[in-house]
Structure formats: structure tokens, C-alpha cells
């Protein structure tokens, strides 16, 4: 099994340059790790619109419907008329609906986050704790036909501070 290479950068532009070059050189399996969210890094990683939004939308719609359904069902299980209102009453049930839209929407967004991001990370992955402080790190995984040395060179040229061989699979 091929080893991954991990490189740490001190500067964000070096790091991005390295990533771009690697990408251009045909290394597809690269992970970019940054201490702060970075738009360029996301672009390099080829991320555009996140599928999380679908979770939110579906969750919200389902929530709204289920809220109304829940209120209706609860009212119909044991019919107890109150205050001269109808059994299925829209104004209050819409409030419940509204709240449930948000509740289920939030929960399904959370679910979407977990699914899309792949977190929680069940396996141990290549990682350097400097990443959470002020270092930008880059992990390159190799396909059998890739040349690890080339990748290493690109990174070193771009100004990598440190290059480490990591055993852990990405």
C-alpha cells in the first residue's frame, strides 16, 4: 500500500500554489487542511454548492408537514373540543407547523452536515496538530501510477516547511 505524503506550509499562498500545482500534475487525491475556512482551498478541492442545502429543504418541508400532521393526529386521537374552536384548527396548527419546520429543518441540516462532511471521523487520519493553530497542511494520496517523488518535489518547491510520510490512509 502506498504511503501518503503530508506537507505543512507556513503561508497560505504557498500552500494554495502547491495544491494547485499538484492538481495540475494529476494528483487527484489531495486533502487540504487549514486552520481557518478558506474559499480558495475549497475551490481547488472542487467544492461548489454543498448538498447540505437539500437536506435542509427536505427536512424543512417534512417538518412542516409532520408538524401539522402531529397536531391533527393528536387532536383526532381523543377529540376534546375547546373554546368553540374546530378540532382541526389552522391558526394554531400552523404555528406548530412553523416550529416543526425549523426543528426538523435544523436537525436534518445537522444530519446533512454529518453525511456530507464525513464526520465524525471514525478512522484515524493523517493530521498534524499545527493545522489547528497556524499551519496549512496538505495530504497527498497516491494511485499506483502516481509518482510520490514528483509530488514531494512540487511541495518542497512551493515552500513546504515540513514534509512527512504518513502511514495512515486518507
Amino acid at each position, binding site marked *: 500500500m502506498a504511503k501518503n505524503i503530508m506537507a505543512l506550509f507556513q503561508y497560505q499562498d504557498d500552500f494554495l500554489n502547491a495544491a494547485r500545482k499538484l492538481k495540475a500534475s494529476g494528483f487527484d487525491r489531495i486533502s487540504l487542511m487549514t486552520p481557518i475556512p478558506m474559499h480558495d482551498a475549497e475551490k481547488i478541492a472542487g467544492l461548489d454548492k454543498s448538498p447540505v442545502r437539500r437536506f435542509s429543504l427536505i427536512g424543512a418541508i417534512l417538518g412542516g408537514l409532520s408538524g401539522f400532521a402531529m397536531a391533527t393526529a393528536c387532536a383526532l386521537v381523543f377529540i376534546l*373540543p*375547546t*373554546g368553540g374552536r374546530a378540532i382541526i384548527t389552522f391558526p394554531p396548527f400552523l404555528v406548530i407547523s412553523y416550529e416543526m419546520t425549523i426543528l426538523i429543518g435544523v436537525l436534518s441540516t445537522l444530519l446533512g452536515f454529518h453525511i456530507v462532511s464525513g464526520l465524525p471521523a471514525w478512522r484515524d487520519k493523517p493530521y498534524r496538530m499545527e493545522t489547528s493553530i497556524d499551519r496549512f497542511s496538505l495530504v497527498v494520496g497516491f494511485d499506483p501510477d502516481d509518482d510520490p517523488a514528483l509530488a514531494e518535489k512540487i511541495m518542497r518547491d512551493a515552500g513546504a516547511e515540513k514534509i512527512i510520510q504518513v502511514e495512515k490512509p486518507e
Partner: protein
Amino acid sequence: MGKMRDKLKQYLKPGYYEKYDYHWGMTIDLDRCTGCEACVVACQAENNLPIVGEKRFKERREIKWLRVERYWEGEYPNIKLRFIPMLCQHCDQAPCETPCPVAATYHNQDGLNTQIYNRCIGTRTCAVYCPYEVRYFNWFTYKWDEPLEQQLNPDVTVREKGVMEKCTFCIQRIRQAKDHAKDDGRRRVRDGEVTPACVQSCPTKAMVFGDLNDPNSRVSKMYKNPRGYKVLEELNTLPKIVYLKKADSDV
């Protein structure tokens, strides 16, 4: 399918009921009422209202499902004292029913505003929403001094702390009358067969109780009295107690 549609229609109908089985109502003739408060004790005796003690009265935590309110009018020497017995109005659009989160109070098919004590969790919202302030809360679990507990009516629950309670139009008496009617093979309770404790005791016969569905019942006739009015009618709670205002005094 049609049946489903009818059902849905009923669920969407304000007030839900097509027609109440009975529509219990009461009239209180303020021209007869003398404010003697016999009804107050009758209610206390019938419905196991606790003896709360002086301290609780000081804190305004007395429990009287039926109280007599008094209002002075005028100034000495041309002064009048008016009495008005205030009890649960069993409103058809009761503001107190809707806000109960556990539906411990609701409107039943006799048109009564119910209170199910053992369902109550004590949010007291109903008491805030009730414009007549006739809902009383059990701030404590009240004890009866031995052997006063022997006079407790076994047909009525003794309420524990944290529970709201109010006038039930003496549901135990209504239930018993219905039971008797069934025994006699009758479908309906006769007019006058049910008298809540307050109505029963009233020394001036100021109160009349009965079924408003029955156009010939005494209460239906009293309802049409031109002196009749409802307290806080403008709130549109549709109270079922009609007060007959005091008549003018010219002979």
C-alpha cells in the same frame, strides 16, 4: 368517501358539535337574590371544597366555586349594595379551554365546561384566561381536621395540590339524574330533575337550572326574560348563565 368528507367537515366546524345533547344553563334572578350566601355553603358541602384556614384567606387563596360579589352603588345615604353570584359560566366559547396544554379542560357534549382534575398539571393558564375569575387553584393539599373528612362527598374527588378546580354544575348530580332516567327507561332527563347544590339551596329561588335545548324548560323560558343579560357579554365568550337584572323599584 362521503362519510370521510362529512367527518372532515365536522372536524373543521367551529365548535365541533352539531348540537349539544343537553345544553345546561342557568338563570340567576338578581331581583330575587338577597346575597345570603346559602349557595356558597351548599357548594362547599357538595363539592368537597377545602376548609383553607385563616392564613389562606389572608393570602387570598380561598376556594369558593361560587362566590357572591358585592358592589356598592351611590353614596350615603342614597346607597345600595348589589349582589351578584359569580360561578363558572360554562361559556360555549370558553377562553379558558383553549390554552390548557394538556386539554384538562374542554367542552363536552352537554355544553359543559369540564375540568378533569387528575389531568391538570397546574399551569394556571385557564385561570388567567377566565374573565370571570371563577377558577380556583389548589395551592396546597388541604387536610380536613378529623373527623370532618367524614362529610366529604364520595361522588366528588378530593383535589390535591397543584390542580385547578371550578364549578361543574354539580356534574355528579347530572350524572345521577341521567342514571335515574336510564333506570326509568327514559332517554332524557326531565326538567327540574337536576338541581345543582346552589340552585337547590337558594332560599329565594333566584336560580333556575335546566336544559336550554328543551324550549319548554323553565330555564329556557327564563332566558327570554327581558331583564336578562350576560356578564361581560362583549367578550363573546357565550356564557350560559343569564342574569336577570334587578328590577326598578317603583311599585
